[in-house]
């Protein structure tokens, strides 16, 4: 696939050239507010091209954004809490040494003291009025942040309205391109409001002539983030949640607005990725205790954390061969970290491991199994193939949209050649054509005969950009690609095909050619 990477890098180079030319053009001339604004936007666009991809975690209140961020990083960096917790847009970037910077609305920056206590960073604003703060920048040495800068955002339906406005101003600002190259949107269930926010992110009107959207459906992944609660915390909760996610993937209201929908138990994922040895031994002791007593204890979070469990349970918990004492504080800590579903799942997995002597027998294998069961693996695969794997496309799009916005809002008489260059890249790059047509197909702006539309979407990368995904999981990718190429070429050339459908068919042909070229 190095060839495919080459074309994408070519796209980045083209974007770099467009932005560079724009910077040169706007570098001359008067220092009026509009030109200053244009320079700032272009400067930001240029530096973004060389930085890691910016992925925002957005969603409604308590959807589990910070928890999922920690799960993706593999460390507890973002503080989480039962109440509304994240009140400022917070950037997490990879860096050689940890620092936290505060950036005020007027652009001034200053260091902020912080402490890490295993529950995430405690950031001390020292009495600074939070309404003055634009964002927090957390520099954190972590492999989990090497390829992407993750941006945590306040809940979108907060009672404290200013918090929600911060998120919207970041993802869909009025006066500059979106601060995010891609969005992971978290929700508990698909609420009408969620659809409204997703529409704003995919808003085609704001994507300009490119028709690519502020972030675009291609840059949006929806996560059903509290998968454990959907099935009432039962052992099959994640399976139930997976079914719900599948139903949402096919839902006509959500389908045009995102790449895909994935179910994840964020809490379990976070805990599994940061599992401690002491937690493993505590869970193992719990799994060794008589099952009936443990089940009775797990009827509710309150019971599990109770200081005085029924005598028979207390006895069972006190008689662990390794001498692990499951006292109330230990149990409370377990509940905070795993939740009811997490503890039920972990003990079930450990019991099976102990019985069979295979599978989950130590903390490493337990962590792996819990990550698998949390749905995080699937999300990471989706992100790797569709978001991070296509970072050059996403970043180039952000940069080009910035130039487009500058041209529209800070017009000058001498921008003709720049506008032409921009137009050439936006319409010439096959990656953008794919995104544009995919969005048009899913939103129904372009219709194909019903029997050909699913394949068209797939070939254009609707199920993922990998050749196998494009060809519907065929074993012999080459043969399938050749066959599809042939069929779609015929369709593209047929006089009976409508103009719009022919455009789709031509794009599908190019996508097939792309697959064949780099096989």
């Amino acid at each position: 696939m190095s060839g495919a990477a080459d074309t994408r890098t070519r796209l980045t180079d083209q974007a770099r050239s467009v932005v560079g030319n724009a910077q040169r053009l706007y570098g001359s001339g008067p220092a009026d507010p509009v030109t200053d604004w244009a320079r700032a936007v272009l400067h930001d666009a240029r530096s973004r091209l060389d930085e890691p991809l910016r992925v925002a975690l957005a969603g409604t209140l308590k959807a589990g954004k910070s928890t999922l961020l920690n799960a993706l990083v593999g460390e507890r960096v973002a503080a989480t809490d039962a109440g509304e917790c994240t009140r400022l847009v917070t950037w997490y970037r990879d860096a050689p040494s940890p620092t936290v910077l505060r950036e005020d609305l007027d652009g001034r920056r200053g260091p902020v003291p912080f402490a890490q206590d295993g529950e995430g960073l405690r950031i001390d604003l020292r009495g600074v009025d939070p309404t003055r703060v634009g964002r927090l920048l957390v520099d954190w040495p972590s492999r989990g942040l090497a390829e992407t800068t993750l941006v945590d955002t306040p809940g979108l339906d907060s009672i404290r309205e200013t918090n929600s406005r911060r998120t919207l101003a970041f993802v869909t600002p009025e006066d500059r391109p979106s601060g995010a190259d891609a969005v992971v949107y978290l929700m508990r269930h698909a609420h009408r409001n969620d659809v409204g926010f997703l529409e704003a992110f995919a808003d085609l009107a704001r994507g300009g002539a490119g028709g690519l959207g502020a972030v675009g459906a291609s840059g949006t992944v929806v996560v059903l983030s509290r998968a454990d609660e959907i099935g009432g915390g039962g052992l099959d909760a994640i399976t139930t949640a997976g079914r719900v996610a599948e139903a949402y993937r096919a839902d006509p209201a959500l389908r045009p607005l995102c790449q895909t929908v994935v179910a994840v138990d964020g809490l379990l994922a976070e805990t599994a990725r940061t599992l401690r040895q002491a937690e493993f031994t505590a869970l193992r002791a719990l799994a060794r205790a008589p099952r009936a007593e443990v089940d009775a204890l797990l009827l509710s979070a309150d019971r599990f954390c109770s200081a005085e469990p029924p005598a028979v349970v207390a006895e069972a918990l006190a008689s662990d061969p390794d001498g692990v004492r499951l006292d109330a504080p230990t149990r409370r800590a377990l509940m905070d970290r795993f939740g009811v579903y997490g503890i039920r799942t972990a003990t079930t997995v450990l019991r099976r491991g102990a019985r069979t002597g295979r599978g989950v027998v130590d903390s490493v294998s337990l962590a792996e199994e819990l990550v698998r069961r949390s749905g995080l693996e699937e999300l990471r695969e989706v992100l790797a193939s569709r978001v991070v794997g296509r970072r050059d496309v996403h970043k180039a799009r952000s940069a080009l949209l910035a130039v487009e916005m500058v041209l529209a809002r800070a017009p000058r008489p001498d921008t003709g050649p720049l506008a032409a260059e921009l137009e050439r890249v936006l319409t010439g790059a096959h990656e953008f054509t794919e995104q544009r047509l995919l969005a048009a197909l899913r939103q129904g702006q372009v219709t194909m005969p019903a029997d050909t539309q699913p394949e068209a979407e797939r070939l254009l990368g609707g199920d993922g950009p990998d050749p196998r995904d494009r060809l519907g999981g065929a074993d012999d990718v080459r043969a399938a690609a050749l066959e599809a190429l042939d069929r779609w070429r015929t369709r593209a050339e047929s006089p009976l095909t409508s103009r719009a459908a022919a455009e789709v068919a031509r794009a599908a042909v190019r996508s097939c050619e792309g697959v064949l070229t780099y096989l």
Partner: protein
Amino acid sequence: MKKDLVDLVKVARQAATAYGRPDLEKRLSTVSASVADDRARVLVMGEFKAGKTELVNAVLGGRALPTDAHRATTVPTVCVQGAQRSVMLARAVAGGEEQQQVAPAELAEHVTEAGNPDNRAGWSYAEVTLPVDALDGMRLVDTPGAGGLASPASVSTMAELPGADAVLLVCDGGRELTAPELALVRTASAVCPTVAVVLTRTDLHPHWRRIADLDRAHLDHAHESLRRVPVLPTSAALALHEEASLLAESGLPDLRELLRTEVVGGRHARRTRMAADEVLVVCEQLSARFRAERDALADPGRAQRISDELERSKARVVALRDRAARWQQTLNDGTQDLVSDIEYDLRDRLRTVTTDAEAALDDTDPAKTWEQFAPWLHQQVSAAVSTNVVWAEERTRWLAERVATHFAEDGAGVLPPMASPEGQVMAADPVGLLAAPDHEKFGLSQSLMIGMRGSYGGVLMIGMMTTIAGMALLNPFSVGAGLLLGSKTLVDERKRALRRRQSEAKQAVRRHVDDVIFQAGKNSRDMLREVQRTLRDHFTTTAEELERSLNATSQAAKAVEADGAKRQARLADVAAELERLEALEQRARRIRESVGSARLVGA
């Protein structure tokens, strides 16, 4: 308790008949009707998938209603107590309501997304009769949740608020109240006597106590009146667990207690106070005549003075009945103002909807987006109309109170004294009577919804026509000619067609909104006329009753026997009558006081 009350009203009615006052008897007959149906209406509301149906099941103590992890309830389900389990479905049809009995086991096929997505069957509600003690004195209404992808019309639940005795706002115990939820609590507490926030699934959320504290703080902070709104943590899973000892941990006993004392008890107390006050008013009017006669009999020299005084009072009562009386003017002017205010409010709200709708249509091709657009429009229009109805109800209540105050002020001195300060203003709980039986069952909102459904169907037809027209233009064969003309012309042709579709869609929106304004405006005008008529009749009748009482009293005072022996005998008779009425009065007072103290315990 209830039997005592029914009995009291019955005895008072007999007394009114016996003393030759059919007018007072008639007045009491309305009271007995309202006392007879004493079931409090409890709405269970909240965002979709918050656990409303689960909670209702927990209150009922069994899985009577269907629940599912993914599919939500789409039809309001009314639970009532009855000897046998049965399910009745109802939908509005021209000129009334069509009802259909179905097997209880089939309920899920009719009221959830599983069998009836988007409520395509068009049921307006399902009534489930269950032999469950927890439903004693209550109609428990499980509503479709707000905000789900499949429940666009659910805002119509808002229009049910004015008729409700209690609203339970159900929220997931894993997160704080959101802004829309807080707004709902605020609206509900303006029109319903009892509002409570119920947290669900506390078994799954270790931090529900924090959430409860945060919600408490949000409520306290939001508005003074929300301080009395309780936050009740519950777990349906624990309540429905086979092990009965878990019930105590489920929070359900507290909720049931709230429903029993504050909601059912509160409604009973309100009705009892109203009925007892009515009986006291009647007693007072009946005994006034005997008191005057007794005074005249005891001292024949005062008879003339008493009679003169009564004549003066009569003149004032006549003035009170007069069309020029202040309360009449308050009522007439107030109704007129209300009609125009409410209509203005509705127009204003719908104008905003129209503007938003047109802006949305400007950015899209209606041929493609109409399917999503039509439900959105429906939701916005329902929300506007619902808010308008709630607001109208509040304003109407305020008007009724003002009229009652003016009536009481105008009649100060001639009106019989009331048992309590609140009784003086709300002499006969006029609003309570208005809101009585027929408003109970999806009455007011139903007529609105029918009107809207009717006109909505119209738009849907126009909408489909637009869609078909749009499809035809994009059909490969019909643009065949365009292909020959070259791409530029084609684009222009398509733009023109798009513009035409957009303007057709905008016209459809405006027509729909006009229809709604006409229908909803007519409904609210009719409702207000009805209110005006009811209030006028009520107070005029009260004045007429007073006049008759005064007539009877002055006649009794004049007709004092000259013969000493006969006078003594009559005096003894009159004293005995007064004693009987006194006893009835005492009884009414006792009953009234009994609910007064019961309410204190509940609070």
